[in-house]
């Protein structure tokens, strides 16, 4: 049996003594799209960064594709793509140059074609030769998503990917995520847009007080989901 793309056990992450994550357990299998919900400040970003190996857990164990994430094995990192709140793209380089740079770091085969393909998907063909500094928020977000998908990762970790996108771009992202999910990729994403995420999700997970308090298997009912999320953000004890 192959190892799941992601297996987190009792993840703890402290900042200056405060435990932002206080024991998170999560398993994500191939073909799953897990939606992570939680009130602002619940630790979603911290959790996603730990899962993407950008932060080391203070305690607990994280395995990506069966290997200890702490080892940072190139083979593992190559299979993970991450988009955070910021684009991780250099403002003084053009969109195309940014993608070419990352294609080089990830050793993407047939880089030029792949870059062009993703620029088209992101709707950035026109702006590809302009510096990222002049891009709108939505354009930067699309470029960031393109960057994360450049190396065809098997596991995508996305922190509020829909934010800043106009409806057309959101639909394009929807379609892409659905296609990836159906073709056996694993996706973990956090969002406040419950209605949008519900049809995509195979599972919903709620983070509160540094722990996972709800792990709902199966495709989520948008109404139930919205109600749960509502309860959460209103500060249900």
């Amino acid at each position, binding site marked *: 049996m192959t190892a799941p793309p992601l297996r987190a056990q009792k993840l703890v992450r*402290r900042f*200056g*003594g405060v435990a932002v994550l206080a024991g998170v357990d999560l398993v994500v299998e191939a073909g799953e799209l897990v939606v992570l919900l939680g009130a602002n400040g619940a630790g979603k970003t911290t959790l996603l960064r730990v899962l993407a190996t950008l932060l080391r857990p203070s305690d607990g164990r994280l395995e990506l594709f069966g290997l200890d994430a702490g080892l940072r094995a190139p083979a593992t990192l190559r299979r993970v793509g991450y988009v955070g709140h910021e684009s991780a793209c250099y403002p003084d380089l053009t969109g195309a140059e940014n993608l070419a740079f990352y294609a080089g770091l990830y050793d993407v085969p047939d880089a030029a074609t792949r870059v062009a393909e993703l620029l088209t998907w992101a709707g950035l063909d026109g702006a590809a030769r302009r510096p990222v500094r002049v891009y709108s928020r939505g354009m930067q977000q699309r470029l960031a998503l393109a960057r994360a998908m450049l190396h065809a990762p098997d596991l995508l970790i996305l922190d509020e990917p829909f934010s800043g996108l106009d409806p057309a771009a959101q639909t394009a992202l929807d379609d892409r995520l659905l296609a990836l999910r159906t073709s056996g990729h694993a996706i973990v994403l956090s969002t406040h847009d419950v209605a949008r995420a519900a049809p995509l999700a195979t599972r919903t997970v709620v983070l509160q007080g540094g722990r996972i308090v709800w792990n709902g298997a199966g495709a989520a009912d948008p109404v139930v989901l919205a109600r749960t999320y509502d309860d959460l953000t209103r500060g249900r004890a």
Partner: protein
Amino acid sequence: MRRLEPLLAPAVFVAMVAALWFIFMVVPTERQMGIVQRIFYFHVASAWLAYAGFFTVAGASAVYLWKGSAAADRAALAGAEIGVLFCTFVVVTGPIWARPIWGVWWTWDPRLTMTLILWAIYAGYLMLRAFGGDDEAVARYAAVLGIVGVLDIPVIRVSVRLLHGIHPNVLNQPQGSGLSDPTMRLALLVASVAMLLLGGWLAMVRMRQERLSSELAALRRLAEERA
């Protein structure tokens, strides 16, 4: 280690009194330099302690980077503080000794220059700790600095020799200002032991204080959460 601490304070007291007695009552007045030479014993002992402190920083820093042990981090901090403390003492007693003998408060001879640079490096370490911000990564940064500092010591030593110097090489030169009298060597030994005990005790107290401080902060946070 903790059981040792209550014994240390009286031990330090006894050693210090013994050292002072030796330095002022037993040891004869040095021929060439006169009474001011008596400062030499604490001066040299302090220098050794300063180095001990700096090497502690390096060792503890390496352990911290490797294992992430909070105790190692506390040891590095204590080592740096002790090191800077005794280094300051060296840099202050040096001129007091030098003025009557050389006629100047300061020269840029190799040993003095080196001591001053070392002081600056570890004062910088303390500054990093103090002004680095609340990010707990500061402990890591300080550890890197601690290791780089100790690696620099031999290179600094060689490079300051590229400039010439007049520091009286008390322990190596056979002629002139050597430690002729055996009681002088004994006094140096006693002073060194006293300083070592003092430094060790201060370090222990500091480390304990730091540990209690973080425990208190953790308890306070816990209380706030439960409230």
